[in-house]
């Protein structure tokens, strides 16, 4: 038992020494390997991080949002639904909400107007990304085209904090009267209702009751939104990985080639070792440790870099590919998180194919004839 451990130790030592002896060749391989781990890892960590972020933000969202559709078309909700919904069992609170989109032809971007008590009449609060894009900071005035073509100006009194920027990037908080004046939304109608149901088990029942109460009501569950986000981000991440798989393939070919094309020097070295008393199995074990060291190094370095890139550098390299559904990219920070599952997935996408690609070349190398060194 101890001898076996000692044997592994010797062969590992030898493998490390022989890696160091061929620094040039191995550094190139490890460099490319690290890059591949970095790219795939960034995608993975980013997708996962943004999903967690969405889940975290939605955790505060209402359990049910009630909208109204008439003949498949979206319609505002009568404000008097509020009381009836509030009377349902299990519902703790109902908040009528007034909000809508606004297209800015100058920036070619959509903003979201949301009526909020924090905004006094004639004043607005801006999402951070929007504030940056329009160059409007507290104290400035900002103007929008109203629905009837008139030009309305507001004073900016604040910028929303960055913490929740994923959802608030393009947000404008506005007072109710200003909103109705800007959009022409008639009094007595709201955009939707935010319904709070403290007990998660009662949510489907409440939603069902709401749907029964008003024939045109369409309750949307938070869990469904979450699911949509999840699959949206998963899909984007998956697509990105599929694109990156070309890189992976190129890397595998490189690795295979490097492992197959043994230099005369290496071939001679293996021949010598076999001639002086190593077995094919010993050489393969040594090669195994060599591969392990390379993989460990590249995997470690690549995932650390990816971690830093995603959670400290905000994923600047891959951000455009993943998020681009809005022109206003939030520059938010994703809360650092790395679970075993991400690492295992990354391991499967990089180390497993690398191992599979180098196993046969390693064996080939190990079967060099020992008697050739006699000539």
């Amino acid at each position, binding site marked *: 038992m101890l001898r076996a451990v000692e044997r592994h130790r010797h062969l590992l030592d030898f493998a490390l020494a022989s890696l160091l002896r061929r620094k040039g060749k191995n550094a190139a391989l490890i460099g490319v390997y690290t890059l591949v781990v970095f790219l795939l890892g960034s*995608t*993975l960590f980013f*997708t*996962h991080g943004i999903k967690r972020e969405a889940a975290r933000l939605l955790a505060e969202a209402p359990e049910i949002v009630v909208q109204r559709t008439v003949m498949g078309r979206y319609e505002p909700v009568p404000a008097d639904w509020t009381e009836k919904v509030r009377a349902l069992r299990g519902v703790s609170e109902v908040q009528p909400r007034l909000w809508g989109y606004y297209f800015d032809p100058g920036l070619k971007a959509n903003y979201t107007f949301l009526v909020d008590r924090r905004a006094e009449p004639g004043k607005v609060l801006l999402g951070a990304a929007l504030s940056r894009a329009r160059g409007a900071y507290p104290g400035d005035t900002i103007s929008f085209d109203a629905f009837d073509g008139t030009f309305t100006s507001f004073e900016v009194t604040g910028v929303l904090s960055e913490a929740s920027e994923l959802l608030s990037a393009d947000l404008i908080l506005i007072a109710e009267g200003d909103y109705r004046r800007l959009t022409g939304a008639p009094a007595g109608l709201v955009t939707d209702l935010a319904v709070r149901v403290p007990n998660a088990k009662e949510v*489907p029942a409440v*939603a*069902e009751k709401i*749907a029964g109460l008003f024939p045109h009501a*369409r*309750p*949307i*569950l938070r*869990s*469904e*939104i*979450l*699911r*949509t986000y*999840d*699959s949206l981000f*998963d*899909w984007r*991440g*998956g*697509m990105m*990985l*599929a694109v990156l*798989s070309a890189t992976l393939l190129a890397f595998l070919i490189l690795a295979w080639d490097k492992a197959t094309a043994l230099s005369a020097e290496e071939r001679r070295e293996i021949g010598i070792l076999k001639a002086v008393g190593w077995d*094919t*199995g010993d050489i*393969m074990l040594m090669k*195994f440790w060599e591969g392990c060291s390379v993989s460990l190094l590249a995997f470690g370095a690549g995932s650390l870099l990816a971690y830093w890139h995603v959670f400290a550098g905000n994923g600047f390299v891959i951000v455009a590919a993943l998020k681009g559904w809005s022109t206003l990219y939030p520059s938010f920070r994703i809360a650092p998180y790395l679970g075993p*599952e991400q690492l*295992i*997935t*990354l*391991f*499967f*996408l990089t180390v*497993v*194919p690398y*191992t*599979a690609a180098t*196993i*046969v070349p*390693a*064996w080939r190398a*190990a*079967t060099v004839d020992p008697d050739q060194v006699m000539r």
Partner: protein
Amino acid sequence: MILAPNVLALLVASGATALLTALAACHGVGILRHWDLSSGSERQLALERRTYLTSALVGTVLSFELLSLFLFVSSADRIAPLLIGAMCAVGTLQANGYGFATLYLKLALFLLSGLWLVLNHADNLVPDYPLIRPKYLLLLVLAPLSAAEAVLEALFFLRLKPDVITSCCGSLFSSAAGTETDLAALPPRTALIALVAAGAALLLCAFWTARSQRRLAPLLLGAAGTVHFAVALAAIISAVSPYVYELPTHHCPFCLLQREYRYVGYLIYPALLAATVTSVGVGALAVGRAETAAGELPRFRRRLARWTIAAELLFLGIVAACIATSQLTLR
């Protein structure tokens, strides 16, 4: 179809595994056809060298299978919220006919490749390759299984229909599909008694094998290992899981792998798999032509038996600890 990163990772791994097993089987065919130990020809030398490759390939397959077994279950778990009605891995796996088939294939491949490595090790203990034929015949079984696993797994993920609400329109009433399983029918008390009995039988046989030279001992150990595996799975579903979750109705064998339950499954299942591979391996060795491997083989057999004992004690110990610390009492 679901194209999540971990799904891609699984597909890559099962593709690589299938490729490696196919390669090993190709070499295996060569070995089965042309093997002639008495010949000093260059071809025989080349074949003997190939045995090094096949061992390395199967060893790699074993480790890939083990990892992918756990990633598969945890991915199924993660996908569950995407599927309406699925609560955890069981729901995902039941979403179409390929889920459980893939899982069982993975399990079978892991156990068979473990068995192969046991045979291989025994075969390498003596110079005359006594097990070369059974070994490579087994390899020919592994290859199609591994290919089937890759195909079924791909089909499983391709056919998964995430019932998502697109953009922001969702239909609420598509939920309500039940994910009850009928795996939990066994009364928990019976299951636990059976587990203790099977565990005791396994340990006894293992002790006996470690002590005696009789051929009956390893054969019984192999049989006990097989029975124990089945009983243990049933007991985990019907009794151990509810104890761990402290919910009499929660029978899912996969949630054991989750963080909420301190990842206890990552100890329970490897211990169980190790006890199974070693004990069944000993049995398989006794079925084969064991006599040729005088001296070395009994030592290897005793070592395997000791591994069985260690793994089984770990397994039973963790199960006992789970039950002892649980707030739940089942009758």
